[in-house]
């Protein structure tokens, strides 16, 4: 059904999507601006595939076969044969708009153009095209070769057929697609906001310590991680900017208001695991 898939952007998400597609023996044209980035992405995919073999998720043969289906490319015109292109460039509206303008002239008129975004408006990205009806959002979750969920985002002008094709591709890749309207945060990032926001409010109001809140949420709620552990893992700066972005996109809706604790921690470079300290200390792990 999808003989040639294009993936634009060979970062973490692009590599993960390529990985997932190559395992279905789909030929993937992986595009990025230079060979160095592409080589690094390929190494990353190979490492992840090897991990999959070690864990018994895939066989050695599947791994070898998958690698033959990945075709690194540095010219967008090489994506001409693709029926479906997933763009996974950086989360910057201007960059994405620019890419889509170029993509439209590089591919067939029937090609579906998907954007992997967690925070930008699919409608805004599609607005630069002559045919915005063939643009759809596909929000993959990191790591994209493992996480099953894909949020399929129907923009204001996305056609039903385009949504259906994105749905079909997700299924074809072994994913679980859900369909959401093009609204800030879509489903997951929106509905998850109170998990962090209320925990921060409880901490700020001194109802309980962060350790207690994590313990209660895990032990009584059955969540795999507490909100403070999870903010440390995600990065307190990242979590803060997602919240800030939701708050701005909803024009100051108080449910999405960030908490001063977040800002203070970002100001003091307590960003979580990556700096060795966030709500918890990670002294035995490498900082920086």
């Amino acid at each position, binding site marked *: 059904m999808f003989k040639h898939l294009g993936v634009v952007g060979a970062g973490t998400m692009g590599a993960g999507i390529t990985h997932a597609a190559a395992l279905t023996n789909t030929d993937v044209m992986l595009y990025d601006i230079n060979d160095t980035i592409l080589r690094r992405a390929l190494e990353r995919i190979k490492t992840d595939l090897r991990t999959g073999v070690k864990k018994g998720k895939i066989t050695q043969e599947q791994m070898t076969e998958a690698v033959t289906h990945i075709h690194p490319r540095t010219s967008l015109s090489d994506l001409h044969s693709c029926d479906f292109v997933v763009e996974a460039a950086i989360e910057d509206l201007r960059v994405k708009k620019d890419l889509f303008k170029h993509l439209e002239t590089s591919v067939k008129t029937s090609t579906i153009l998907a954007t992997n975004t967690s925070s930008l408006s699919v409608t805004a990205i599609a607005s630069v095209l002559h045919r915005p009806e063939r643009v759809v959002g596909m929000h993959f*979750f990191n790591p994209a070769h493992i*996480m*099953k*969920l894909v*949020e399929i985002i129907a923009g204001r002008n996305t056609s039903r057929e385009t949504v259906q094709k994105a749905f079909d591709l997700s299924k074809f890749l072994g994913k*679980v697609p*859900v*369909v*959401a*309207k093009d*609204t800030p945060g*879509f*489903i*997951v990032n*929106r*509905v*998850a*906001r*109170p*998990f962090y*926001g*209320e*925990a921060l409010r*409880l901490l700020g*109001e*001194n*109802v*309980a310590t962060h350790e*207690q*809140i994590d*313990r*209660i*949420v895990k*032990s*009584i*709620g*059955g*969540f*795999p*991680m507490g*909100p403070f552990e999870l903010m440390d893992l995600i990065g307190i700066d990242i979590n803060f900017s997602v919240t800030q972005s939701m708050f701005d996109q909803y024009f100051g809706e*108080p*449910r999405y*208001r960030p908490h001063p604790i977040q800002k203070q921690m970002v100001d003091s470079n307590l960003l979580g695991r990556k700096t060795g300290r966030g709500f918890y200390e990670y002294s035995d792990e490498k900082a920086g």
Partner: protein
Amino acid sequence: MGKAKRKSDQRSAVSGQTSGGRAVLSIIGDSPLVEEYAELCGSKGYDVVVVRDSKGKGQKSKAFRETGAIPPETSLALELTNTDLPAKRKNIEQLSKALSPATAILSSSITVTATQQSSWIDKKHRLVGFGALPGFLDRALVEVAPTVFSPPETIEVVRTFFHSLGKEIEIVQDRVGMVLPRILCQIINESIFALQDDVASPADIDTAMKMGVNYPLGPIEWADRIGFKNVYAVLSALEDDLREDRYRVAPLLKQMAEGGDWWKQSGTTS
């Protein structure tokens, strides 16, 4: 300091054997929470009495008996009303009148603080709040909210009682919503706002949260399990207490709490 007197007021044998038989535990409040607690406490060896105005018409359980009057020999009382605060107040007042001052009252304090509840009675030292919602009784932890009037002895009675049920306690400040109910019900509220805004179908919202961020249950199925009436009670208590738009209850959630389960069959995409 009156500490000695207080001590003599407390009966520390709540979880153990009182002389001449099993400890009598009186339970009063909302269904199905009352039945959940009665079954659990019965299975742990307590002589459980469910206090109801009208005798239950449902099937009889071996784990507990039902009466219309509060047994005076009660050694610990549980008040489990979250939805109807006037009824809760009546229950607390009746328990306080019927029982000796040495008997502790453990009362759900999610929708009204334990401190406020203790203002309804004279012997304020006997009342301690805790977090009780349907669907969490198999968990190894429970939130407990003492008040400024709760002496260490009362808290020990509570700790011993929950230990006897196989639970540890986490002592938190006495605030509306406590910790888990506040976080969870706000997640549910947001999911219903998303549903109301027609962002996605109920099934897709649940799937997205389970698979995208590993929630043990989807927020909508979770609300269904806890009961939309209970979720609404928690959220509107938060709204009243905190008086911020952040705690505005989704109008659709209110309808779901009032209108039964019509929404389960209805298509949501317009």
